[in-house]
């Protein structure tokens, strides 16, 4: 064939590109793993993180990143022994990508992992941190699978079972005898996890779920069929263990069909008021269980919110607060354990585990006196808020 020239050209170009990409990957290694913080000058504690910074779930990753960066800046301003170097990579909330991001961070010389943000990716990546003995504290991956069987993984957020049970207790207690419906995302471990535990607990308390409708991730545009089912079942309370984006659509569509139940959300509902263009009147009266209330009068919260708004020009959501708390919890535990930055990862990991399971307590934005059990789960009390006049009001 006559095209042989073009083809040869392409072969050479492709081969060169291949060599280049390998070289680029190999190259980053030299700069990455060389320094374990042992060089002269300021000692550095490398905290890595991974979360979705692009794609559909990026709002959570970006919030965690921004919250964490504020915490890092605060700590670096006052800490004289060492500086925290914080690096967050984009995993698009994908398990395969989270392996890549973790390995990137490993090349960079990660000492402690603060992540990953989303559950699915976290389960995948935590299997690697467990093998490598890197201590991991996830701000927001809430499934029980994240920590199961891995002694090095801890959570800042509630576990899903915990939330489901607490929500069931609250509804059973405060709305006795009312009909309860649930709409949940059955392709999301977070949503399904909360729902399953909610259902079990609620039924054990003698409640009955009038209607439970699910939707898969792909068709998150339209909930009219689910709402029609809720309405016809006469549900007075609709429990929404889902994130706020679909929730906002559900509220709008419910209003369109003149259906006005009490919506009861969980921590994923947090953020709904910040959605650009969202008519907050739609969310009036919505109840949600969140560990973080940006309108709280708490001093620490107010300071954080002010700083966050000044830096990023938006109201922080719970994920930002989780990121902030995670950094501080790691820092406090690191100091309390008397660790130094030039210790190998295994030693840091073991000492941190001992610290976290040994009565370490941290007062954070998302809960006072947080403690951890040996499964890695956090113990803190959730707060139920109701949305009134566009802000959260504690119940």
């Amino acid at each position: 064939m006559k095209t042989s020239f073009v083809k040869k050209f392409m072969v050479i170009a492709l081969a060169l590109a291949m060599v280049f990409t390998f070289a680029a990957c190999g190259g980053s290694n030299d700069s990455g793993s060389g320094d374990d913080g042992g060089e002269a000058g300021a000692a550095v504690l490398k905290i890595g993180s991974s979360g979705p910074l692009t794609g559909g779930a990026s709002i959570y990753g970006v919030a965690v990143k921004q919250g964490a960066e504020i915490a890092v800046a605060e700590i670096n301003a006052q800490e004289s022994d060492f500086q925290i170097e914080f690096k967050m990579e984009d995993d698009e909330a994908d398990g395969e990508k989270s392996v890549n991001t973790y390995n990137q961070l490993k090349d960079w010389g990660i000492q402690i992992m603060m992540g990953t943000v989303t559950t699915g990716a976290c389960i995948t990546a935590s299997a690697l941190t467990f093998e490598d003995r890197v201590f991991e504290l996830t701000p927001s991956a809430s499934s029980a699978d994240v920590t199961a069987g891995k002694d090095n993984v801890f959570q800042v957020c509630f576990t899903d079972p915990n939330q489901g049970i607490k929500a069931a207790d609250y509804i059973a207690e405060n709305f006795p005898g009312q009909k309860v419906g649930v709409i949940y995302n059955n392709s999301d471990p977070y949503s399904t996890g909360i729902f399953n535990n909610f259902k079990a607990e609620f039924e054990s308390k003698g409640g009955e779920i009038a209607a439970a409708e699910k939707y898969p991730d792909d068709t998150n545009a339209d909930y009219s069929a689910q709402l029609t089912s809720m309405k016809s079942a006469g549900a007075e309370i609709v429990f929404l263990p889902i994130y706020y984006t679909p929730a906002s659509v559900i509220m709008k569509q419910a209003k369109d069909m003149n259906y006005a139940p009490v919506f009861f959300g969980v921590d994923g509902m947090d953020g709904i008021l910040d959605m650009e263009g969202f008519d907050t009147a739609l969310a009036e009266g919505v109840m949600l269980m969140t560990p973080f209330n940006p309108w709280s009068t708490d001093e620490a919260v107010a300071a954080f919110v002010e700083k966050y708004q000044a830096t990023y020009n938006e109201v922080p959501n719970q994920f930002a607060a989780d990121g902030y708390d995670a950094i501080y919890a790691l820092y406090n535990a690191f100091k309390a354990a008397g660790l130094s930055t030039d210790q190998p990862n295994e030693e840091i990991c073991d000492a941190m585990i001992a610290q976290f399971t040994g009565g370490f307590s941290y007062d954070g934005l998302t809960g006072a006196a947080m403690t951890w059990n040996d499964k890695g789960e956090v113990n803190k009390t959730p707060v139920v808020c109701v949305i009134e006049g566009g802000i959260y009001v504690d119940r």
Partner: protein
Amino acid sequence: MIFLTNLINGLSLGSVYAIIALGYTMVYGISKMLNFAHGDVIMVGAYISFCATMYLNLPAWVSVILAMIVCTALGILIEGLAYRPLRGTGSLAVLITAIGVSYFLQNAALLIWGSAPKVFTSIFSALGSSISLFGGELTVTWEALFTLVAAVIIMIGMTLFTGQTKVGKAMRAVSEDNGAAQLMGINVNSTISMTFAIGSALAAIAGVLLCSSYPALMPTTGAMPGIKAFTAAVFGGIGSIPGAMLGGILIGVIEIFGRAYISSELSDAIVFGVLIIVLLVKPSGLLGKKITEKV
């Protein structure tokens, strides 16, 4: 009543699919390419309308026109820069390029508008939220009503346009036989550009209507409706304008009914299952022309 509600919801969703599918079908008819970036043009249209109303405080109808103008320009630009250089190389190379354009639009939108979902204010919000019928038993939203009406008007308009006007006839000629049309003195390049322009303007309308009914607006908003509309276009017989309309409506209704009466998890599987069965019975779609190869 629940049945009627579901039917209306299905018709409304289907109308959006139909408008998107019209764009798909026209572009396919003329350039024989699957323009996978079409769904993302919808998303851009919705963002433009959103920005016009939120930041510039323009009235809703002006924002729609603005979105149409921007999308038209975008459509012409995409065709000229990405697709034209590959004309005549077979559909697969252009298909991959279209996927590249799709990635590009999504990621550009992510950089420009951020990842946080915007809540699109319905362009019919001034009319109130819905009409109550049968003493509140049945509610019909303005969005559903206008989407359906818009789809019908657009379909009639496009049928007349391609049938009656000079440009429309040129489009049909180019679809039938690119080379012969050129010999007849039709400017093929500008005709194809024109088709992309119209398809993209329709996409802008679809974007606004879609987000009026389902207000969460994200960079990935257009992707799934795009695939569904592509399915709808094939379902009705790709290249056929009434086919796109019929396919869109049917896909919408099947999707909603499937979700309501069979299984919300399997609603997509049901839609695609029906598509497969239809294609096996009618291999070129409901209203598609059977193409026989000349031997």
